[in-house]
């Protein structure tokens, strides 16, 4: 099954009180990707980062209505999840293949305001990203570690400053799968993006909110828990130089210290990854059993 998650971010320049369609970040689009129409596509979450309070509106004829749709107040200077929050039980809006979502923001009259949709595809042809659910994580999880990176965001409202996940501290064990449970940031922005071969080169995303560290640090675990599906991304350390972290934020840019919460996994348990055949067969001598205490 070609599972995929994609964080699609955009920005509105000087929207003021006028609902302004977001300009999608470079290379992205608010049109839902083409999939088999019988396979689910879900709006897992949406959030916004405004310097001045405004409204985020998501609408489409295929959603509830094209008049107001999903419309929520964006409070200033807080990157808060506005719909599909994965805190505890939640609800996720189904999306439809090739639907051109209208995503609009209001906000400040002299600033760049930003928002992000996190979209999950149950089966996106030609992607086959690597994701696991919580029972699998509990069964094959081994040791927790952190990847700390420093990202310098750009001021254009696009994703920028991409650095490899091992750019600051290269402590990952060779040929080993790691689950990304979530991430924390020390600076407010709109979205922390993680892109890599193992996610089909699509960007998974986490709200860049420093005051919700407990939520960000457990972001994908919460998504998997709330929506009962494999939404925890997995990458292999053999691809660490091609697994990158970047940030999308408003016109202020900024320097972000990002802590990605990783869990080392047992080798060979998550399909589709590097086998480590070249040098360290069997995952570098990692143990063959793991799991959470019962």
């Amino acid at each position, binding site marked *: 099954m070609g599972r995929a998650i994609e964080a699609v971010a955009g920005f509105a320049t000087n929207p003021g009180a006028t609902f302004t369609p977001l300009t999608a970040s470079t290379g992205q689009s608010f049109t839902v990707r083409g999939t088999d129409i019988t396979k689910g596509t879900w709006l897992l979450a949406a959030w916004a980062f405004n310097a001045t309070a405004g409204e985020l509106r998501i609408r489409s004829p295929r959603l509830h209505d094209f008049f107001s749709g999903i419309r929520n107040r964006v409070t200033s200077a807080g990157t808060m999840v506005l719909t599909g929050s994965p805190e505890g039980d939640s609800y996720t809006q189904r999306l439809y293949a090739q639907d051109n979502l209208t995503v609009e923001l209001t906000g400040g009259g002299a600033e760049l305001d930003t928002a992000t949709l996190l979209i999950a595809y149950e089966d996106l042809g*030609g992607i086959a990203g690597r994701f696991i659910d919580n029972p699998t994580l509990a069964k094959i999880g081994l040791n927790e570690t952190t990847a700390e990176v420093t990202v*310098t965001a*750009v001021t254009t409202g696009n*994703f920028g400053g991409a650095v490899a996940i091992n750019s600051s501290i290269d402590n990952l064990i060779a040929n080993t799968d790691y689950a990304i449970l979530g991430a924390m940031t020390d600076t407010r922005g709109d979205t922390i993006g993680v892109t890599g071969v193992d996610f089909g*080169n699509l960007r998974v995303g986490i709200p860049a909110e420093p005051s919700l560290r407990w939520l960000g640090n457990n972001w994908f675990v919460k998504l998997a828990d709330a929506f009962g599906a494999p939404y925890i991304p997995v990458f292999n350390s053999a691809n660490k*130089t091609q697994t990158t972290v970047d940030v999308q934020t408003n016109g202020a840019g900024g320097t972000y210290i990002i802590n990605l919460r990783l869990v080392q996994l047992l080798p060979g348990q998550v399909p*589709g*990854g*590097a*086998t480590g055949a070249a040098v360290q067969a069997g995952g570098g001598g990692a143990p063959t059993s793991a799991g959470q205490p019962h």
Partner: protein
Amino acid sequence: MATHVEQDFPAGHPARHDYDPESPEAIEWARTHVAPLGERDFAIDHPKAADTPGNLNHLPVTMGVDPLNPHREPHTGRSQKQVDGLRRLSETASTAAKESPVLQPIDAGIVNRMLDKKRTDLGRDLLTEAEYADTLRDYHAQRSAGVADAERELKLTVREQAISYVMSRGYDVDVAAIIVTREGAEKILKSAGIEPT
């Protein structure tokens, strides 16, 4: 060695054998133990008691802010001078920073197999940027014909768009197909305000 003398009540306590209500000890005991206005939330002189001089109850406690140093930056504790300096530095860095490259979506399973083959051929795990680029170029070259077919295949027809819309109103795919056949795809899309693509 001095012998420890255990007293039954502290000095000034009303039950003590030498109790003198006018003594400084008795006055202090009464001050700290008698509450004429009724039960107190905190004992007299407790640092949180409302009548303790210098208590900090009026200070707001907000996330990341040191109540005794509210002028410092939340969460970091930096001084305003440090904050200003870092902001200037960060602005300079952000202006010079590059936008992230746009990547073409790939099939992780296939690309990982291709990368593994390359690693085996080279006899090492970590590939260089150029070796990654080579593999991805090979992948896209091999898949280009297939991708065109897949894109054609994934492109929804007008009928499929209409079925998709009817499904969004709560019908399952079989019922939606019947409705679209009966009503006509273009009529349904027009009534929904959707431009067929």
